[in-house]
């Protein structure tokens, strides 16, 4: 009758998404210019940046790019002088775009395949936050068929349907020790899908000014019957049915954008973008496990995110007919409020700067390289749900390259 309750022995793994999971790497020309592109029509990446601008493209495009992303975070636990770093891992955001229409036609069709959300963070299994998160690998791939139409010489519109395929792999320690003193682990792994849309308007106000408006809808993504694997000591495995399945939904947020393009001289293009990202739809994250026990309950974690604003600016200098130099930068506010910052991506306000270079071979093939450096401001936090307390700071390094064939 020494009744022991294994209640609340371990909180089940919880996944969170933060601003950091929005990957703003959707075209290498645009990255070079501070990831601006709403108000200008650069190339096939307009399928993402502004479907309305696709019909305004002077040529047809077929292009692909990759921007290997190195997210490096450090954590200093409160009251200590220690530092813990994430492992060196490279996430591979990529883009593919096609935009085609008959010469002189008023319309173009397009297809975009891109990765607007994702994250790869590996803190390892020995850091002080191991019972909150060890490793996260999240990928969201959007497929977007698009139609764009030129209403007048100045005004064009476009819209696309979005299908999202997401996969997630998250591991986290379980604070239950086996007979050799090693703790357990939870892994959740699965893929899911979601739907949304992307629409835009592109307006050539004059030869010196273009304007774009876009709305990318929320993409509510559901991972259904993903695998939940719990490694715990044998005598309590019964409390953690394994393999188990989970279902979770994540609202990938909507983005409203406005952008301007200025053309002061023949060589210079200057772009400004402002985005409002609807993170406040991310109120809570719930996990529904197929097999529940007293130790393994469904979880409901409040997130209470706030909308974020990003301001971006960039410029391109056409040094020679076949050579373009680009630079830019921006500032993004944090989505996670105080008390809700988690180590999967330690969200914070961030500043970034970019450089780019474009070279055109034989008038048809653009090679564009870009580099982005992003700095997440240091943030000292105590998470309400886990009481993980300390200071996070992150840097992101993103080289990138794309090839675009146009005719």
């Amino acid at each position: 009758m020494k009744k022991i309750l294994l209640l609340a022995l371990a909180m089940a793994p919880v996944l969170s998404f933060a601003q950091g999971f929005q990957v703003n790497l959707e075209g290498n020309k645009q990255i070079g210019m501070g990831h601006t592109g709403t108000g200008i029509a650069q190339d096939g990446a307009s399928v993402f940046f502004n479907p309305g601008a696709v019909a305004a493209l002077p040529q047809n495009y077929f292009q692909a790019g990759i921007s290997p992303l190195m997210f490096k975070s450090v954590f200093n636990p409160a009251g200590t002088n220690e530092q813990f770093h994430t492992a060196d891992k490279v996430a591979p955001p990529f883009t593919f775009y096609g935009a085609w229409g008959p010469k002189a036609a008023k319309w173009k069709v397009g297809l975009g395949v891109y990765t607007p959300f994702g994250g790869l963070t590996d803190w390892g299994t020995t850091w002080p936050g191991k019972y909150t998160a060890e490793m996260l690998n999240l990928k969201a791939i959007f497929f977007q068929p698009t139609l764009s139409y030129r209403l007048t010489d100045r005004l064009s519109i476009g819209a696309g349907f979005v299908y999202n395929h997401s996969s997630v792999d998250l591991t986290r320690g379980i604070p239950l020790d086996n007979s050799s003193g090693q703790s357990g682990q939870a892994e959740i792994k699965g893929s899911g899908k979601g739907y949304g849309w992307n629409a835009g308007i592109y307006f050539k106000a004059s030869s010196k000014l273009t304007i774009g408006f876009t709305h990318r809808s929320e993409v509510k993504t559901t991972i259904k019957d993903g695998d939940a694997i719990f490694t715990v000591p044998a005598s309590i495995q019964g409390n953690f049915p394994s393999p188990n399945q989970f279902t979770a939904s994540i609202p990938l947020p909507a983005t409203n954008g406005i952008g301007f393009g200025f053309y002061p001289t023949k060589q210079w293009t200057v772009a400004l973008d402002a985005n409002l990202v609807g993170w406040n739809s991310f109120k809570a994250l719930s996990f529904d496990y197929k097999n529940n026990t007293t130790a393994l309950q469904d979880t409901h974690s409040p997130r209470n995110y706030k909308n974020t604003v990003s301001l971006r600016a960039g410029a391109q200098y056409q040094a020679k007919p076949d050579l373009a130099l680009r630079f830019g930068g921006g500032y993004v506010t944090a989505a996670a409020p105080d008390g809700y910052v988690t180590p999967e991506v330690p969200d914070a306000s961030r500043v970034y700067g970019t450089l780019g270079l474009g070279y055109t071979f034989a008038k048809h093939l653009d090679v564009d390289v870009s580099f982005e450096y992003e700095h997440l401001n240091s943030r000292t936090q105590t998470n309400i749900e886990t009481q993980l307390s300390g200071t996070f700071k992150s840097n992101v390094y993103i080289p990138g390259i794309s090839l675009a064939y146009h005719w």
Partner: protein
Amino acid sequence: MKTFRKHIYLIAGLLLLGACKPEINPVSPSKGTADFSKYISVGNSLTAGYADGGLYLEGQENSYPSIIAKQMLAVGGGEFKQPLFSADQANGSGYLRLAGFNTDGTPKTETVTSNLAIRGQIAIPGFGNVTLYNKYTGGEFNNLGVPGIKLQQITYAPYGNLNGFYERMLGPAAPANTESYLDFVTTGRNFTFFSNWLGNNDALGYATSGGAGDVLTDKAVFEQLYNLLINSMTASGAKGVVATVPDVTAVPYFNTVTVSAVLAGVQKVNPAVQALYINAKTGSGLSDGYAPRAATTKDLIVLTFPTSKIGQVVDSPAGPVPYGLTQYAPIENQYVLDENEVTLTEDYIASYNNTIKTAAAAKGLAVFDSYTFLNNVKAHGLLVNGISMSSGYISGGIFSLDGVHLTPRGYAIVANEFIKAINATYKSSIPLADITNYRAVKFP
């Protein structure tokens, strides 16, 4: 080709940049106004690293003083030696280990009896048998915690013959010991900093025996000995930290086997049973006697109570009756800390703690108020770095299988509380230990 080369440099440069890690530069730790170069720890089983009903190597290695000392290294702390059991006698006195669970979810424990450090037993006239352990021969050490010792015993010269754990630390073999614990900890040690967590057993001995097998140390005696100890420890200018005595009702030893749980178990078999009967103190005075009465939820049954005794037919003045279910054969005194005994014990602990805080304040010592801390844990649980802990037995993660002493994680939490108290008093910044590096209860 030339452009390609250029690009190679560019790419190499970018990759190099990519290798840069972000850095946070926390302020470097400071020793403040204290000197941690030689730290000694004074105390009882908690200080020695006792866990799971025994003293064994893993417990010693995770004792809170050793964790504090490890963290002190960053602020000029010196080497901290402990009277460790050798690797081939790592199981020391033997200890409890979790063997598994019964189908109803109750735990099964077993005693580890291999690789012990027991060297024999000696009969001390007028006291009884004392188990002796192989002597520690590794020279001077810093952790002076002696399992079982009461503050009341620190001036008793022959104590080294009555406690095998203390005897093990001393030169002579029992029964030839004549050095009191007070002399042992203060003579020739040249320490600059000390911790003292004595006093628990002065109340706990009474409580864990259900008020039957031991007595509470007199309040005035406690005060006199505590002041004597603190005056001796600080005589040559050493600074230190002391801890209060925890509330006995904050430990799972008294909160796991509850009256309502036992009664519910009985009623499952025999719904007619209305109450458990205990032999309880009739008032909360020292001299009050005992009489049988029905148990209430305010009476605490000890963790080690063999619940199988309940309902067994035993002889009584009224003839054969089921054990524990009538006033004629109540649950015996040693299994229950009844409501009046709880009140009495708490009254003594409050007095002890008042003495401890007053003595510390007089000398400007840091205080870890374990009484308040463990009561908070009992009331609200404790959440640290994603680990949800409580005062619960086994599941709580803080207390070891004996329900009184701590797991390595529990000791790390206590070490951090000591460190916080030290840092606050001496304006030092000893870094906190990472409690996730310390295990809780081991499950098979």
